[in-house]
């Protein structure tokens, strides 16, 4: 019976036809030159859609979800495409998903409806994301709009992202590697224990000390729940300081952190933060490192990266955060500038008041978590420029203080032209004068995602230009975007960190 089925003429015919077709296909392929045959899909995966043979493929992109805010903006549109080509999973935050918007985005982009001005919607948006690229910008220069998108938007999103990271970490019963470490929080009278007020002078001048007004300082818990460090220094060369031995929670060391963040209020004086490092048993071998911070009138948060600390004795090695055991905040009347704003006509720069809220350590990391496309301000009408820049600056600052790894890109005026054609200049300090194509900005965003040199940097970028003779401010270092070279790493490694 089986034999009979096998000998079924229809089956035989079909089989022989298959064999013949296969042979014929091969045969006719022989004569082809420029036409390629369609390979079966499994093997073509390797050379085509995002496989390792594709020039765009990035290892690890598959496991990375990027949230793009402002996905329909000029830069955002290209960012989304570039991410898709490289095999990332992309989430796009849009205000409303009407047909026009959806048609603009690639089909497998996950669209999240939300508004950066509304923190509740952002909680949903950041879920499952490991990186954020923020290319949204206010559509008008009305202050409300600017504040909502350029400042509050960045703040809300970085906060939502941090909350999400913490939530994830709690699920794993641990701390998020991106969360800040609390060093001190001044919320009760007890929390002041361990802090010590000291006085001193830089030089022993017996005559001067006799005739000046002296100095005094106290650190106390006020009735309305503030920890206040206040006093005055009239002595020439004198200073007062507030110092404590750091007691870190078990298992954490400061080398996993890259800076301090202080939430302080007061009358806008500048202070010197001093870290004492060395073997904790023997303080005589400690060396001192200092960094100057300035505050505003009222409350503000100040970010002090460890890299900004300089040794008091120039012969000492650079600060090793692992060995830090003592933290000191010092006030000295030298180099104080009158604070802005109405504090009263007669400011005595030798008196100070500082309300301490908390001191935290900022975590380190390898890569950037949050890429913000800001602007340099050139190309904006002068009437609007200031208000735009103020909002952008506030947004940048809130990102720097969030504890996330950040990259702030300030491009020159954006131009709608293809990218990768002209050399780029990376610079810090608001000196650039040229425009840049949206595609190049998008390319920098995408490259910065996995570039350790991009972490915690702010930089300006524009097309290469030739300075007029005699007006060269600095040596221009240009980097040509190309397939073969990764231009971003060398360009950024020359720039300052923590800016």
């Amino acid at each position, binding site marked *: 019976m089986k034999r009979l089925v096998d000998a079924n003429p229809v089956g035989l015919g079909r089989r022989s036809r298959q064999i013949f077709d296969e042979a014929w296909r091969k045969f006719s392929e*022989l004569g082809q030159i*420029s*036409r*390629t045959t369609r390979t079966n899909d499994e*093997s073509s995966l390797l050379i*085509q*859609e995002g496989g390792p043979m594709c020039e765009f493929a990035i290892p690890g992109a598959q496991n990375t979800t990027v949230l793009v805010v402002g996905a329909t903006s000029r830069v955002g549109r290209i960012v989304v495409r570039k991410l898709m*080509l490289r095999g990332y999973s992309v989430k796009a935050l849009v205000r409303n998903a009407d047909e026009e918007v959806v048609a603009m985005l690639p089909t497998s982009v996950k669209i999240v409806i939300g508004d950066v001005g509304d923190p509740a919607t952002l909680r949903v948006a950041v879920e499952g994301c490991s990186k954020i690229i923020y290319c949204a910008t206010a559509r008008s220069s009305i202050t409300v709009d600017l504040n909502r998108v350029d400042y509050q938007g960045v703040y809300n999103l970085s906060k939502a992202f941090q909350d999400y990271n913490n939530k994830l970490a709690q699920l794993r019963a641990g701390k998020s590697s991106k969360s800040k470490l609390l060093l001190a929080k001044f919320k009760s009278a007890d929390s002041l224990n361990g802090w010590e007020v000291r006085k001193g002078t830089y030089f022993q001048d017996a005559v001067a000390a006799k005739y000046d007004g002296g100095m005094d300082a106290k650190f106390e818990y006020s009735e309305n729940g503030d920890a206040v460090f206040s006093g005055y220094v009239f002595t020439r060369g004198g200073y007062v300081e507030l110092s404590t031995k750091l007691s870190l929670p078990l298992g954490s060391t400061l080398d996993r952190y890259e800076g301090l963040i202080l939430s302080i209020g007061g009358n806008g004086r500048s202070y010197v933060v001093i870290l004492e490092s060395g073997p904790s048993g023997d303080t005589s071998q400690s060396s001192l490192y200092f960094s100057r911070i300035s505050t505003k009138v009222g409350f503000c948060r100040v970010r002090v990266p460890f890299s900004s600390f300089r040794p008091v004795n120039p012969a000492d090695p650079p600060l090793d955060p692992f060995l830090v055991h003592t933290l000191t905040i010092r006030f000295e009347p030298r180099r104080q500038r009158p604070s802005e704003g109405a504090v009263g006509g007669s400011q005595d720069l030798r008196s100070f008041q500082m309300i301490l809220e908390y001191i935290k350590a900022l975590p380190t990391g390898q890569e950037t978590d949050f890429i913000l496309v800001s602007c340099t301000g050139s190309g904006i009408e002068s009437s609007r420029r200031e208000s735009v820049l103020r909002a952008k600056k506030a947004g940048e600052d809130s990102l720097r203080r969030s504890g996330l790894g950040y990259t702030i890109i300030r491009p020159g005026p954006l131009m709608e032209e*293809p990218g990768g054609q002209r050399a780029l200049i990376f610079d810090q300090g608001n000196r650039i004068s040229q425009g840049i194509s949206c595609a190049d900005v998008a390319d920098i965003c995408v490259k910065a995602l996995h570039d350790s040199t991009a972490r915690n940097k702010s930089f300006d970028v524009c097309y290469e230009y030739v300075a007029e003779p005699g007006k060269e401010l600095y040596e221009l270092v240009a980097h040509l975007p190309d*397939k073969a070279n990764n231009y971003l790493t060398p360009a950024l490694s020359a720039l300052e960190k923590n800016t």
Partner: protein
Amino acid sequence: MASTTLHSRLSHTQSPAVTRSSSSLRQITGNSLTWSRAFAPDRLLSAVSQSSLRVVGGSVKPLITCAAGTEPVAAANLAPGTPVRPTSIMVIGATGTLGRQVVRRALDEGYDVRCLVRPRPAPADFLRDWGATVVNGDLTKPETIPATLVGVHTIIDCATGRPEEPIKTVDWEGKVALIQCAKAMGIQKYVFFSIHNCDKHPEVPLMEIKYCTEKFLKDTGINHVVIRLCGFMQGLIGQYAVPILEEKSVWGTDAPTRIAYMDTQDIARLTFIAIRSEKVNGKLLTFAGPRAWTTQEVITLCERLAGQDANVTTVPVSVLKFTRQLTRCFEWTNDVADRLAFSEILTSDTVFSVPMNETYQLLGVDQKDIITLEKYLQDYFTNILKKLKDLKAQSKQSDFYI
């Protein structure tokens, strides 16, 4: 759309000085292109001779005339609307081997890419997934073209008819309609991919069509770049690499023809440099890989990289040629015959390659950025062998659990 109807006439006569045979007279009248085929014994000879093109019945005019170019069709931009952005491009043939690389490259460089694809039940999702816009249109139906070209600055044409369809509907009639439409709608640049040496082999229908299209494009006066290509490395994977890995038989010929294969990603990259360069306008560029290879050499290379011997079936070129002659005898096998036409070239000792130094210089490209076939195939085999190993390891593990 009236502007897309064709009034072009084309005929192809061989130069009388060399052969007086009128056997290969090809003519296009109205909307059709016809070839009268004959088995001229001196076919090879005529291939060498430069063929000249004349208008049938006309005086000595260029053979191909474009209706849009000669008639006062509304070719100028009438409305002072918004200027078209130079970043907006249209890719024809975007689902093909080269087309998809062109689309990818374009998207990565920040272009807004529109792809003309034929309406079909399973749409080209991968294009939309990368962020390109897909519009439905069919070159064989000229009325579907104009609407898709609105707002386009540059057209990049990487289309070639599929092997299973008659060559002339897409490659000739469709292209003529498209070019005329582009002209009429004021498209600012047209990039056309052709085949290397296509002017030297009029006996191969596809090459003949490509050559005629080049001429036609030039005659319309549209701002254009013609890029002639030799062979794609990607094609070798399916033809040789996969069969070797699967231990199936590999079919090769004993032809001495050498082809300088090139990676389509490199082609796409160079293409965009060429598009943006003003120096290249109206020029004819030829892109060739770093070295020309024979079929045998490619198979040997694959064998070495795969670490296993190929089961090669060598088909003598004469058999191919014979088959072609045979298939041409019947009306229903004419398409097959067209496809086998390349065998005519294979017998000749042609080298499909061209020195690239000038092109590199013109485009400002470094030669070492162009991938070689050895490197390409090596990458492929390293990746695929690793993947196969992973798969094997996985299957072993599942065995363990059973």
